[in-house]
């Protein structure tokens, strides 16, 4: 798995549970405490070991951790901005999710992401399908899509439905004032 994914998990663990807990999880998973390089590719087994060790140490299911990682990522400003390029409104963002793997590829050609399919739209109900669903990827997406609803100021109910599926019920697209987004960094002059 790409170092970006491993680094994201590491970063989340360090930030949320502290460096000491990260160190214990790293030891348990047989990973260097110094952590991952974002721009290097690691063996898939490393990601599995990391998630499993985190689940045991934190006594939480892998899916719950993955969901928190997804929400945590939106807090990383450069990534939040890249995600906001997906659409002007939250609904555009949702409908552009199937382009996410291609967009990720544009930025990082060796980042391997599962295929995403977004369907629905009637009565604000959408379904996001993630194939293949490995490393708790669909849970991570659920966390990310939920955090992005807040970012856009939309009110939505987001649930993992199993089998790589995430359901999104958009209740109010303009529930609150979302966070600002200018096309260019630093905004307009």
């Amino acid at each position, binding site marked *: 798995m790409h170092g970006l994914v491993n680094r994201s998990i590491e970063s989340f663990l360090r930030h949320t549970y502290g460096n000491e807990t990260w160190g214990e999880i790293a030891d348990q998973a047989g990973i260097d405490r110094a952590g991952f390089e974002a*721009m290097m590719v690691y063996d898939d087994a490393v990601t599995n070991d990391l998630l499993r060790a985190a689940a045991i140490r934190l006594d939480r299911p892998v899916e719950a951790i993955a969901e928190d990682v997804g929400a945590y990522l939106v807090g990383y400003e450069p990534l939040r901005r890249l995600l906001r390029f997906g*659409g002007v409104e939250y609904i555009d963002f949702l409908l552009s999710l199937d382009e996410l793997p291609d967009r990720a590829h544009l*930025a990082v050609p060796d980042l391997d992401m599962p295929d995403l399919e977004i369907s629905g739209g009637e009565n604000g109900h959408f379904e996001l399908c993630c194939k293949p669903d490995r490393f708790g990827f669909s849970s991570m997406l659920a966390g990310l899509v939920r955090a992005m609803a807040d970012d856009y100021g939309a009110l939505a109910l987001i649930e993992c439905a199993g089998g790589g599926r995430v359901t999104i019920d958009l209740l109010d697209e303009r529930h609150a004032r979302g966070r600002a987004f200018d096309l260019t960094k630093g905004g*307009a*002059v």
Partner: protein
Amino acid sequence: MDTMVGGTIGIDPTALGVLMPMHIVISAEGEIASVGTTIARLRLGRPLLHSQFRERFELRKPHTSISLGDLRRLTGQRLHLRLRESPFTAFRGTCVELATGQGLLFNLSFGIGLAEAVRSHGLTAADFAPTDLAIEFLYLKEAKAAVMSEIVALNGRLRVARQRAEAQALTDPLTGLHNRRALDMELQRSVAGVLRGGPGFALMQIDLDFFKVVNDTKGHAAGDHVLTVAAERLRKVFRSQDFIARVGGDEFVILLPGLTEPADLRRVARRLIRNIEQPIEWQGEACRISGSIGITMSSLYASPDPDRMLSDADAALYEAKRSGRGCYRVHSEKTAASART
């Protein structure tokens, strides 16, 4: 079946604006007759509408003074235009002739200066046609910057790690002095410097006397302690620019740049031996060692050679040891001759 050949299509200006929000229609008289929504949103001192096209835009490529007659000849070509006023936004585009006598239709884009234009004019995603890849371009620009900064940071970390590894590969772990490999490299460099006409240098080889006795009678820990203290004393005696290496169990080689006076070298050698002979305490007992020194200088050779200098210093050292412990000898033809016999 209908074909468009020879026919014309009529289109409502609003509909044209949906297809091409960055279009400009100029009349047969060269006046800007209508513009798309994005062009209308440009932050300019006065609106473009109803002003003369050539007064507001400069044709950069193909280079020619702009007149409607010229432009008609430019239809279908790749045009580079620029605003004649701040922020001097650049455009690229092309133009086609409208139905006879109705003027020209330009379609523009920001080209490579997109990010700057979006910033200066405060544009949003809604200002671009769905077919326009402008948003993807901006996305890519930011994604690339984020990835590049990660790679730059990674390179920085790798460089530090490499420097650390190199330092370790060139350092004697016990004493922290340079090791044999580092000496070979430095000697090579020093000789190359002399060959290029740089200043000369001296090479000193030192063997600790009675070290083996300490090691055999008091153990390796005592031996290591003695070596560490001896290394400390070498550091004190030599100048900061001198290069001190531990090249064997109890052997050291020092390069002394700029020192080519035998009298100076003798003084350094005597001081060094005096220092080394100070008793070294180990678990309440005094260990006594001494040092024998062989010296050579680059100035003794017409064309100095690293191996030759090392073997001459070694021969001088051998000569010093034969004279008893705690002695030094400077290499000369005589020592060289006696070493060979």
